[in-house]
């Protein structure tokens, strides 16, 4: 690999850019970091991988001065450093790109860059200097952004570049990126990786926090694995493999491919014809979508986010109006908006929404309330006019057991579960209702590897019971491994359909970019 060999050519540096010794940090009874030691060599890209809640972000927040370690020492370029706050971290040459950007949305790029690093009480000289330096940085690292653009008007890819520029403007030599590709499209992620390569070539040290194995394999020189607050291994990337890393992360062997038998499609469950949606701004989001879905089949909808998949799910789920025709088990659905999500559930459509925190759960409600939500009016949950809370709780305990929700406490508010466990609550609710058709959007976004494996198994099991599943995901790997058939959406249309077992990422990628023709 060209990437790895380049790092080898650099002089055999012996002083690490960052060294952490015995870092520990507890939040109340939770030990977020346990005696962590790590050495990051200068001029390398060092990956830190681990499941959600493994302590990666806590560790980096300690390094950036957001939290104070209970014990342990930090050395920067061989010098003992006390990092009391973010200002101290910046002075030590550390820059951080957070998962959720810390930008002022209605400020310009320039204003965001100088915020906190102004030269004097008046802004004019600082802005002029920033403008000059930005031009240099843009040339050096492929980091082009319009300095006068307002943040909320540029894409997330550009916003991320602004975050990187902010760090470089503050003369950072060590750059920490927390889950940087979570919000990016595949081409944007590729561009980011090119930028990171350039930065490494200029001698910068980069720490990349992620839970995506592919990124680790693609770009890092060294990788450290964290599990439950502990550092379980540090290895050279070229000496390891995705299955080995997955096992180190989860603590057991993980199946990275979905194990499923060939589909046995039955009769048609869902028939969609010429579906059109115009949004509040008058933009046409769906431009005549037609497809059908049969029993015992998973249809994957691939596409870059924002090409109409979300609208399609919402229309079928009963939360958005449309024109066209949809038949469910042969019966036409009312698309005028008079039939809501509850009516859809009555005809056998279950829905796991794309955004579980916004649409799938009420975060302040307890798990048992969330499990009953949408089905709370059914007889099993009712005692005459009243809700049968005891039945709801008992049912929640049972579902939590079957879906391995941790902690299995039905009284805990949804917001206090990790992302993966929140998703399991939503999936358990919808799958256990045994819908004839399950709409499932981004089933594993922000979910740990172990939980991904579990959720995938449940989806396949539902299919094998003869149910139809419409899967929407921006993760191409997920689409490829779960689906029986794949439809690719672009600009509100279905660009083409493929049989999953006879397709590949390249072909789908072209369709996702809007390239048509059977040549694709």
């Amino acid at each position, binding site marked *: 690999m060209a990437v790895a060999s380049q790092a080898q050519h650099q002089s055999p540096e012996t002083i690490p850019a960052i060294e952490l010794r015995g870092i520990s940090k507890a*939040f109340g009874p939770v030990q977020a970091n346990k005696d962590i030691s790590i050495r990051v060599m200068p001029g390398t890209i060092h990956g830190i991988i681990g499941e959600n809640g493994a302590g990666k972000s806590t560790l980096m927040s300690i390094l950036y001065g957001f939290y104070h370690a209970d014990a342990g020492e930090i050395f920067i370029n061989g010098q003992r450093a006390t990092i009391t706050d*973010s200002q*101290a971290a910046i002075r030590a040459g550390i820059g951080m790109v957070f998962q959720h950007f*810390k*930008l*002022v*949305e209605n400020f310009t790029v320039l204003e965001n860059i100088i*915020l906190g690093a102004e030269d004097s009480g*008046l802004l004019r000289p600082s802005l002029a200097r920033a403008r000059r330096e930005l031009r240099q940085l843009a040339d050096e690292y492929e980091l082009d952004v319009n300095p006068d653009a307002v943040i909320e008007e540029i894409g997330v890819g550009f916003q991320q570049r602004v975050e990187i520029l902010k760090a470089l403007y503050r003369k950072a030599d060590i750059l920490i990126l927390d889950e940087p590709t979570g919000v990016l499209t595949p081409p944007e992620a590729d561009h980011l990786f090119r930028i990171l390569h350039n930065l490494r070539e200029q001698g910068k040290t980069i720490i990349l926090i992620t839970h995506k194995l592919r990124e680790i394999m693609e770009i890092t020189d060294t990788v450290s694995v964290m599990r439950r607050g502990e550092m379980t291994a540090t290895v050279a990337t070229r000496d390891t493999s995705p299955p080995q890393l997955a096992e180190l992360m989860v603590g057991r062997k993980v199946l990275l491919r979905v194990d499923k038998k060939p589909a046995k499609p039955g009769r048609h469950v869902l028939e969609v014809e010429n579906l059109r949606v115009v949004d509040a701004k008058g933009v046409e989001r769906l431009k005549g979508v037609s497809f059908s879905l049969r029993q015992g089949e998973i249809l994957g909808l691939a596409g870059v986010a924002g090409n109409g998949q979300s609208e399609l799910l919402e229309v079928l789920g009963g939360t958005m109006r449309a024109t066209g025709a949809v038949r469910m088990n042969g019966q036409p659905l009312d698309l005028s908006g008079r039939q809501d999500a509850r009516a859809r559930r009555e005809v056998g459509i279950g829905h796991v929404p794309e955004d579980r925190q916004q649409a799938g759960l009420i975060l302040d409600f307890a798990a048992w309330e969330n499990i009953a939500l949408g089905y709370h009016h059914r007889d099993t949950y009712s005692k005459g006019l009243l809700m049968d809370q005891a039945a709801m709780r008992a049912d929640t305990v049972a579902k939590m057991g079957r879906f391995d929700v941790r902690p299995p406490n039905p009284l805990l508010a949804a917001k206090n579960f990790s992302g993966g466990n929140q998703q399991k609550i939503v999936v358990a609710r919808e799958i256990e209702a045994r819908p004839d058709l399950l709409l499932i959007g981004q089933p594993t976004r922000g979910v740990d590897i172990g939980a991904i494996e579990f959720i995938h198994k449940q989806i396949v099991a539902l299919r094998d019971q003869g149910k139809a599943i419409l899967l929407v995901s921006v993760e191409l790997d997920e689409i490829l491994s779960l689906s029986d058939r794949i439809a690719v959406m672009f600009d509100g249309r279905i660009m083409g359909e493929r049989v999953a077992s006879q397709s590949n990422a390249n072909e789908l990628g072209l369709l996702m970019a809007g390239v048509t023709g059977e040549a694709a």
Partner: protein
Amino acid sequence: MDWTTVILLLDSTIRTATPLLLACLAGLFSERAGIFDIGLEGKMLVAAFLSAAFASVTGSVWLGLLMGVAGSLVLSAIHGLASITFRGNQLISGVAINFLAAGLTVVVAQDWFAEGGRTPQLGDGERFSGIVLPGALDLRTFTIAEQRDLPLLQRFYSDVISGHSILVYLAALVVPLTWWVLYRTRFGLRLRAVGENPAAVDTAGISVTRLRFAAVGIAGVLCALAGAQLAVAEPAAGFTRDMTAGRGYIALAALIFAKWRPYPALGACLLFGFFQALEARPDLFVTLFNLRVPSALLSALPYILTVIILAGFVGRAIPPRAGGEPYVKER
């Protein structure tokens, strides 16, 4: 038509707009930093009372103003403590301050002066008198008939522009100053940032708490000036109970109308000031339109306008995004 009426109307517009403008700018600083301030009203009231009380007792309007500022700052500190340090609800803290001010001023005034919750009438030196600007005539020395014979421009300059208290001219200066501070200085950049996204400020290594306290403090000083204009600037001659009469709330409406920007705030406050000035001149409608407008309706005009503005009839106003929410470092 008779220009005297118009000139008097504009003159009184300027005078009534001044406390609104100062309070509005106070709100602007506070809310731009992400701290909602319902308590403008209470701070004005306390400052009005303290400045009048101490001007009366010490005989110096400047000492009175100083005490007014001090009192307003104490309330600001309470609001800051509740909403920044202890992350309480900003609206509740503001409402509490208003009740506290409304009750305390009357009780203390009664205790000190025993004049039914008001302060004694202020004489010369105990209040800010009108300043005659260079080139202007002191119209107090002219009879109405003599005034009518003066050139219109001279009358306009001498009456509408000249002859106000120092606080009026100060308020006029605070508008460009606020603009300059907000958009041209480091402090302004950080202030605007902390009202939009405090996490961005925090990760840049700047103290969110200190910035917000600074903003709340500035709001306190400006509120005090507004209160002083009400109580100790000619033609006012002392404090009367509840003399702010909802001006703090109207200032907030003007702030929304102005979309949290300094120059539009000036325009909005002049508009509200104009309506308040109209209230005193029901005769105007009779002479102009031969229309008898009930004075109760005229008094209600600023409030009706407030309701219209708050109902969103003047376009969407987007408040500072972090407004009203205490900043908690994420776990």
